[in-house]
């Protein structure tokens, strides 16, 4: 008997029905749970595994050693050195305020610096380290290590940083500094490389080669807990150091050039006339690029910016100067090539000529008397070249100048390089909006007026004349394609011509581009330049070298940066009497040795006065050492070949 007092069968049946509904509901719920498990643990398991790993692992990235830059002989110009750094991981510090207070006492941190660090800490995750100092002295580093037990959260680190061994290379090599927002926007290769301690090239080769020199970043991967605390190290990758580059530069010559430029503002460029190898590219005054590596102080930065002689500017490629009498080389070639004058043409120089009522002066007040073309180049007679330029016209001159490389950048990838100006009628119309005056043609004929050239461009012009009129492409990185075979080709051609009486028809279709119609014209200029340096009354006669094999040929130039007033002319005002900013630039271009030439050189001294008195003597000393070191260079080249 069932024990219910009341109810009985009906109650039980109702209970069964209700229980059935509950069971049905349970089934639905269980299916829901199972379905969810399938979806999470089977279908989407991959996604959640990734998310779980993302939780678990955290990477600390660090910058790899930067690629090294060497000179032609393998000397390090820019390399890396060990530096002692101090990193702080905020979350590991017990009290960040106390820690900074302690560090301030140990390291002499300024309040400003502490403020900057605090701001940085606030802007990032508590487990991301901040670099308190990236270049500690050994004594500071050891002091930190001494107190390490009471400085929680502090991590003394030994790292590598850029070091520049020579201030003489500051411009051509450039410098590295911290990544800026602009760098991140403009440089695709820096994506994912913005890590603590990373440096990027800002100027010069450091900038040009940056994509290959930064290397690939290393990382340490840790397992971290939910609070960001490192539990254990999982893996470590040292990253890949950047590529090392060998350049065509010569450390010794660069040093000498910089020494000769000391206390002057100017530049020296030396180029191999066949291969286009840039042996020297010096600019003065120079600066210490090491200051940029760890962040230059505001004071030093202002000093560099406000310096009268603009130390940060690489004057060899960014300095723009009217070429002065240097242009007479191209005027001569252009006139001969275009057949507008006969080299035998004689012109009387009375110190000036009148042209449409305007007076055009020669640099020599008394005049040169009757001169032919060679003599005009040798003595740099302005009156003669006024006449040549008048007959030639500025457009034909500008065409020749462009052919020889003026008006465009010589190198690739140097952001600071300027292209200069080769004036002509069209150029003036578009850029100044006025018609061309004939008088301007005369000024252009002696390299004044609108002309703007860089010292490297002038050096290139000289090189392409010295090699007999063949186009070359200058290089500074040894890896770049060189005109290796050009020298051989030229020599063979000379022999062939002598033996087989083959003429210029031999040349077309060859890979070497000639810049002349008749090579005699090039040779004519070379001979004239020889006279200018090696015969009495030549403009650079006082700077000649007489030793066999050292004889060179060159052209002086003086570029005016103001117009002489009639009064000044009358008073025979000397350059040194003028205020510094108004003094002429002194220029000198040359090739050496004269017989069997090898190198071209250009020297520019800002506000140095006449080219013959300041620029040529520097060129002379550089050429002397250059030729002395030539055999070493050849040995090095053969070494490279045999390897």
């Amino acid at each position, binding site marked *: *008997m*069932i*024990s*219910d*007092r*009341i*109810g009985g069968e*009906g*109650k*039980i049946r*109702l*209970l069964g029905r*209700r*229980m059935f509904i*509950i*069971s049905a509901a*349970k089934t639905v*719920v*269980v299916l*829901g*749970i*199972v379905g*969810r*498990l*399938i979806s*999470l*643990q*089977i279908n*989407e*398991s991959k*996604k*959640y*595994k990734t*998310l*779980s*790993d993302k*939780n*678990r692992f955290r990477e600390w990235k660090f910058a790899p050693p930067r690629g090294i830059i060497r000179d032609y002989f393998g000397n390090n110009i820019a390399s890396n050195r060990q530096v002692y750094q101090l990193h702080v991981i905020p979350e590991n510090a017990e009290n960040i305020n106390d820690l900074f207070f302690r560090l301030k006492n140990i390291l002499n941190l300024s309040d400003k610096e502490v403020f900057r660090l605090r701001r940085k800490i606030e802007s990032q995750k508590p487990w991301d380290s901040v670099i308190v100092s990236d270049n500690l002295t050994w004594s500071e580093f050891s002091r930190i290590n001494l107190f390490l037990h009471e400085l929680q959260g502090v991590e003394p680190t030994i790292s590598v940083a850029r070091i520049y061994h020579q201030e003489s290379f500051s411009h051509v090599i450039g410098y590295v500094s911290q990544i800026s927002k602009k760098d991140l926007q403009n440089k695709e290769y820096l994506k994912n490389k913005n890590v603590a301690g990373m440096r990027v090239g800002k100027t010069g080769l450091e900038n040009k080669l940056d994509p290959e020199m930064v290397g690939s970043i290393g990382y340490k991967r840790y*397992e*971290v*807990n*939910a*609070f960001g605390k490192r*539990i254990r190290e999982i893996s470590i990758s040292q990253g890949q150091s950047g590529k090392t580059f060998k350049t065509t530069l010569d450390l010794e010559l660069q040093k000498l050039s910089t020494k000769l430029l000391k206390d002057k503002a100017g530049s020296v460029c030396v180029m191999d006339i066949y291969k286009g190898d840039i042996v020297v590219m010096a600019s003065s005054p120079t600066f210490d690029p090491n200051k940029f590596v760890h962040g230059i102080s505001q004071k030093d930065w202002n000093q560099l910016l406000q310096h009268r002689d603009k130390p940060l500017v690489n004057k060899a490629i960014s300095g723009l100067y009217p070429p002065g009498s240097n242009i007479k080389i191209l005027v001569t070639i252009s006139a001969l090539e275009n057949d507008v004058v006969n080299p035998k043409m004689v012109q009387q120089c009375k110190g000036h000529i009148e042209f449409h009522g305007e007076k055009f002066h020669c640099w020599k007040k008394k005049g040169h008397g009757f001169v032919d073309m060679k003599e005009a180049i040798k003595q740099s007679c302005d009156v003669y070249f006024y006449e040549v330029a008048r007959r030639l016209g500025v457009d034909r001159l500008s065409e020749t100048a462009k052919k020889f490389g003026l008006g465009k950048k010589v190198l690739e990838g140097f952001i600071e390089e300027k292209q200069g100006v080769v004036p002509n009628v069209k150029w003036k119309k578009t850029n100044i909006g006025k018609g061309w005056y004939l008088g301007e043609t005369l000024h252009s004929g002696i390299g004044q007026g609108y002309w703007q050239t860089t010292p490297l461009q002038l050096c290139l012009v000289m090189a392409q004349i010295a090699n007999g009129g063949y186009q070359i492409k200058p290089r500074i990185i040894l890896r770049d394609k060189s005109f290796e075979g050009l020298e051989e080709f030229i020599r063979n051609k000379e022999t062939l011509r002598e033996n087989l009486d083959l003429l210029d028809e031999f040349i077309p279709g060859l890979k070497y581009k000639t810049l002349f119609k008749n090579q005699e014209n090039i040779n004519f200029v070379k001979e004239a330049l020889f006279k200018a340096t090696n015969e009495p009354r030549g403009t650079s006669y006082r700077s000649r070298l007489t030793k066999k094999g050292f004889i060179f040929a060159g052209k002086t130039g003086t570029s005016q940066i103001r117009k002489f007033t009639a009064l000044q002319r009358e008073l025979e005002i000397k350059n040194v009497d003028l205020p510094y900013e108004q003094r002429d630039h002194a220029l000198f271009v040359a090739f050496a040795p004269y017989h069997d030439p090898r190198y071209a050189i250009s020297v520019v001294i800002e506000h140095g006065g006449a080219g013959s008195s300041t620029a040529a003597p520097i060129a002379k000393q550089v050429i002397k050492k250059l030729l002395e070191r030539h055999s070493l260079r050849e040995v090095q080249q053969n070494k490279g070949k045999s390897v």
Partner: protein
Amino acid sequence: MFKPGAIVSHLTFRDKVFSLDMILVVSILLLGIISCFAMYSTDGGEFAYHTKSHIVRFFIFFLLFFVVSFFSSSFWYNSSTIFYLIVLALLILVKYFGLTSSGSQRWLNLYFLNLQPSELMKIGLILFLAKYYHKISSTDVNRLRYFFQPLVALLAPVLLVVIQPDLGTSVLIAAGGIAVIWLAGVKMKFFAYLGIIFLSIAPVVISFLKPYQKSRILTFLDPSRDPLGAGYQITQSKIAIGSGGLFGKGFLNGSQSYLDYLPEKHTDFIFTLFSEEFGFFGSISILTLYMLITWRIVRLGNMVRNSFGKFYCYSFATAFFIYVAVNMGMVLGLIPIVGAPLPILSYGGSSMMAIMLGLGIAMSCGIHKDQAIG
């Protein structure tokens, strides 16, 4: 098979042992053992505080299960009202003398343990209502005057728990009570009215909710609302379970819990930890054990020959199922995080005590299935 005179009034100890439902006992034991290992894992693979105290509690309360089941079901029938009233009194005491932890006043300090009366109320309410519906005739069930007592008995503890505040437990208490009322045969429309009333007072209740409770509910509705705030728990739990995959990361290798990404891994999120370490197959095994237990309790209810026993077993089975479903649904991100432990697996003495007590009473009903009650 209702044979008059077949009433067995005196079972020997041996009879009782032999009439224990061994499948139920083994399932409980298995879950208990699994729970000890899970706890060992939450302690980071060390035999530490949580593990030790969980093992001790499990075996003490497992013993309690047998003791309870050997008491006759009429004993439980007779003491159900007084049991309910004592727990209700304790709930009122909590209001005044309770211990507060994480903003919620839930525990009574009994010196040897911190008792959470709301957990015991889960069983107390079911007992009370099972007895109540056992007493009245099925024709009276839907009479208005018989609604009054169950409703008060249900609402009093639920409200006391809500104000602690402990939304999770109050929901679970209510679920058990409603299960009994439903099984007693109260008409559907009554539940409909109750639903309408609930909806109309919901805004009032919401105004009493703590901000964190509100944000939990809102976060459930849109988990991406606040990924590092209230949504963090759901997100991390889903990552842990999902990353477990088919076979899991292996015992003691659950990186999510090991590295402290899982919140409350000892208690509410113990299933997440297990799921991460043992994968889909592990999760399904646990679920199966729970279903086995539910099925065996229902089966006991089927065999019991008095309506108190039936009401109790069915209701408790339903409530037990709801506890499991709510906890799993919560950690799987199917329902809001309300703070509901997983029976047996979760760390917590009161919860373990209540579940073992509930299971023991069901077993007692099973053992004394032929006993006359009332």
